[in-house]
C-alpha cells in the first residue's frame, strides 16, 4: 500500500513536472511578456523598462528554475495584469470553478448512472433509446451553443433563471446543466456498457439462482462492479471539466479559474497561465489518484492481493 502510494506519487510528480516544463516552454515562445504587462496604451520605453524590471532578458532555463522553485513553495509569482500574487488570484477564483465542477460532475453522475442502469436493464426499450438519444445529442451539441440556447429560453423567454453571475444557487443551475451535459454521455454509455457486461456475468446468474430480487441483483451485485470504471471516468471527466469550463464560465459570466485562464491567455499574463495549467493538471492527477483509491475500495481484487 505504502509502496503503491509512493510510486503513484512519484509518477504524479513526474507528470506534473513534465506538464509544467511543457507549458512553461510553450508560453516562453509566446512573445514579449513585457508588452503584455505594459497594457494597451503603453509606449516603447515603458515596455523596455518593464522587460528589465521583470528579468525577461534572462535565459530560459534560469527563468524556468526560478519559477519552479517559487511554485514549489506556493509562490507562482505576480500576475502581470492584476499585479497581485498569482496564488491569491487563483485562490479567489478556484472556488467558483471547483463548485461548478462538483455541481457539473454530480449532475452528470446523477443523471447518467440511473439512466445507464435503466437502459442496461432493458436494452432496446424505450428508455434505452431515450438514453441513447440524449447521449448522442449531448455529444453532438456544442456546449457554447447549448448555453446560449438555455439563456434565451430560461432567462429571456421564461425569466426563471438569472443569465449570469454566481450570487445564488439559481445562478449555478444553467452552467451546471451545460457542463454536466457535456460529461453525461460518456458516463452514461460506460455505465450502460458496464452494466450490460456485468449482467451477463456468471455471478449475476448466481445471485438470481439464490433467489435475490431483481433490484437486489441490480444494485447490490451488478452496480458495484459496473461502477468501477465509471469512477475512473468520472475522475477524468472532472479533470477535463475544470480545464474545460472556460466556455461555460465566459457565457455565464462566472468569474472562475477557467475564465481567468482564457483572459490571461489573451492578456499574455504568463505567470497566471502557467500556474493555471499546472493547477489544472494537478487537479487531474489528484482526481485520478482519488479514483484509484475509491476503486480499490470498491474492488477487493485491487485492494487485497
Amino acid at each position: 500500500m505504502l509502496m503503491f502510494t509512493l510510486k503513484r506519487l512519484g509518477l504524479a510528480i513526474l507528470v506534473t513536472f513534465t506538464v509544467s516544463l511543457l507549458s512553461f516552454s510553450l508560453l516562453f515562445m509566446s512573445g514579449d511578456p513585457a508588452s503584455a504587462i505594459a497594457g494597451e496604451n503603453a509606449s516603447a520605453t515603458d515596455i523596455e523598462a518593464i522587460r528589465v524590471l521583470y528579468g525577461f532578458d534572462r535565459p530560459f532555463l534560469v527563468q524556468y528554475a526560478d519559477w519552479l522553485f517559487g511554485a514549489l513553495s506556493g509562490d507562482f509569482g505576480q500576475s502581470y495584469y492584476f499585479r497581485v500574487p498569482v496564488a491569491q488570484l487563483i485562490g479567489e477564483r478556484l472556488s467558483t470553478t471547483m463548485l461548478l465542477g462538483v455541481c457539473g460532475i454530480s449532475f452528470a453522475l446523477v443523471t447518467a448512472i440511473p439512466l445507464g442502469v435503466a437502459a442496461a436493464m432493458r436494452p432496446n426499450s424505450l428508455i434505452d433509446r431515450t438514453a441513447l438519444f440524449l447521449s448522442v445529442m449531448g455529444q453532438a451539441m456544442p456546449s457554447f451553443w447549448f448555453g446560449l440556447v438555455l439563456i434565451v429560453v430560461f432567462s429571456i423567454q421564461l425569466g426563471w433563471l438569472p443569465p449570469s453571475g454566481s450570487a445564488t444557487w439559481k445562478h449555478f443551475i444553467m452552467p451546471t446543466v451545460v457542463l454536466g451535459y457535456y460529461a453525461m454521455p460518456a458516463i452514461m454509455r460506460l455505465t450502460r456498457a458496464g452494466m450490460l457486461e456485468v449482467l451477463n456475468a456468471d455471478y449475476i446468474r448466481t445471485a438470481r439462482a439464490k433467489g435475490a430480487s431483481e433490484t437486489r441483483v441490480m444494485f447490490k451485485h451488478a452496480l458495484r462492479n459496473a461502477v468501477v470504471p465509471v469512477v475512473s471516468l468520472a475522475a477524468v471527466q472532472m479533470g477535463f471539466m475544470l480545464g474545460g469550463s472556460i466556455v461555460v464560465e465566459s457565457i455565464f459570466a462566472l468569474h472562475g479559474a477557467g475564465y481567468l485562464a482564457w483572459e490571461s491567455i489573451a492578456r499574455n499574463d504568463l505567470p497566471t497561465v502557467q500556474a493555471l495549467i499546472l493547477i489544472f493538471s494537478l487537479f487531474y492527477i489528484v482526481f485520478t489518484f482519488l479514483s484509484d483509491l475509491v476503486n480499490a475500495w470498491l474492488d477487493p481484487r485491487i485492494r487485497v492481493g
Partner: protein
Amino acid sequence: MSEPVLKVDNLTIDIPMSQGTLHAVRGIDFELKRGETLCIVGESGSGKSLTSLAIMGLLSKKMRCNAARLDFSGIDLRTQSPRAMRALRGDRMAMIFQEPMTSLNPAYTIGDQLMEALQLHRPVSRAEARARAIELLGKVGITAAESRLSQYPHQLSGGLRQRVMIAMALMCDPELIIADEPTTALDVTIQAQILRLLADLQREMNMAMILVTHDLGVVARIADKVVVMYAGEVVEKGSAREIFENPRHPYTRGLLRCIPVPGKTKPGEHLGSIPGIVPSLIGKVEGCAFRSRCDVAEAVCASEVPVRRTGEDHMYRCIHDVQPGAPS
C-alpha cells in the same frame, strides 16, 4: 417410492434470432425423485444448460419456454409468479454453475455471499447465518472455515471456489440441486474430489440432483438416471446401467466409442469417432437431427422418428430397433 420431486414433460425452448427462431430445446421429458441423481449428457450446445435454467426459471425474457408439464414438488412452475419463483430459488431448489472462477461476485466476501443465500429466505440473524455458513464450509471440506469467511473470491483457487458454490447452494437445505457442469473447469484430481463431495452430500441430505455434463465418465460413476441430449432433443434416456451396458442410440454408442479408456482402449489404436458437426437448429427441424453424422442413417430418417422403449425406463429415438452390429 415417493412422488417425483421434478416432473418435466415436453419442454421446449425457442430463441428468436435475427436469422429465425432457434429451437434450442425440443420436447424434453424426464422425472426425478428425491435421493436420485439424474445426469444430462450431450455435446456442447445441445441444450443442457438451457434445460436446467428453465427449471430454475432463470431463462432470459426473450426466450420462449413451453412445457406440457413442469412440476416441482407438486408446484406448477409454469404458473408461478416471478416472486414465487424467487422464493423457491435458492431455498427449495439450488444451482451450481460451471465456472467457479466467475460465478462468485468479486466485490463481496465469501461470508457475505454465503450468508445472503440464507438470509434471503430465512428470517435469521447475521450470527445465525454466519454459524450456518461455517458449518457448511466445514461440510464441503474447507478447513479453517472461520477465516475463509472474510476472504474474497479472487483469493481462493478454483477448487475452493467450487466448494464455496456448493456450500452456498446447500445453505437452505434444498430438495433439488442442479449442477451445471460443476467440474469441467477443474483439474482431474479436483474434479474427482468435488464429484465425490457432491455425491456424498446428495446421499446424506437426500436431495434430488441433476448433474449436467458432457463427460460420460462422470455420468457412469454418479448417475442413477441418464438423459442423453443431442441437438435439443432427448435421444436416449434410461437408468445408468442400461445406458452404459446396453446403449441403443447410434449417438450414445458413438460417444462411448470415442473416449480412450486406460486399460480398455489400446494405446495408439484408432478411436471411434462421430464425423461431421452438429446441425443448426434455426428454423424448422425435421426428422432425426443426428442423421447427418449417423453411420446407419437411411432416407426415412428425414421424416418422423419413432420413440422406442426397451423395458420400463429405457427410451430412445431411432428408426432402428436393434443397431446393426450392436453387441446385444
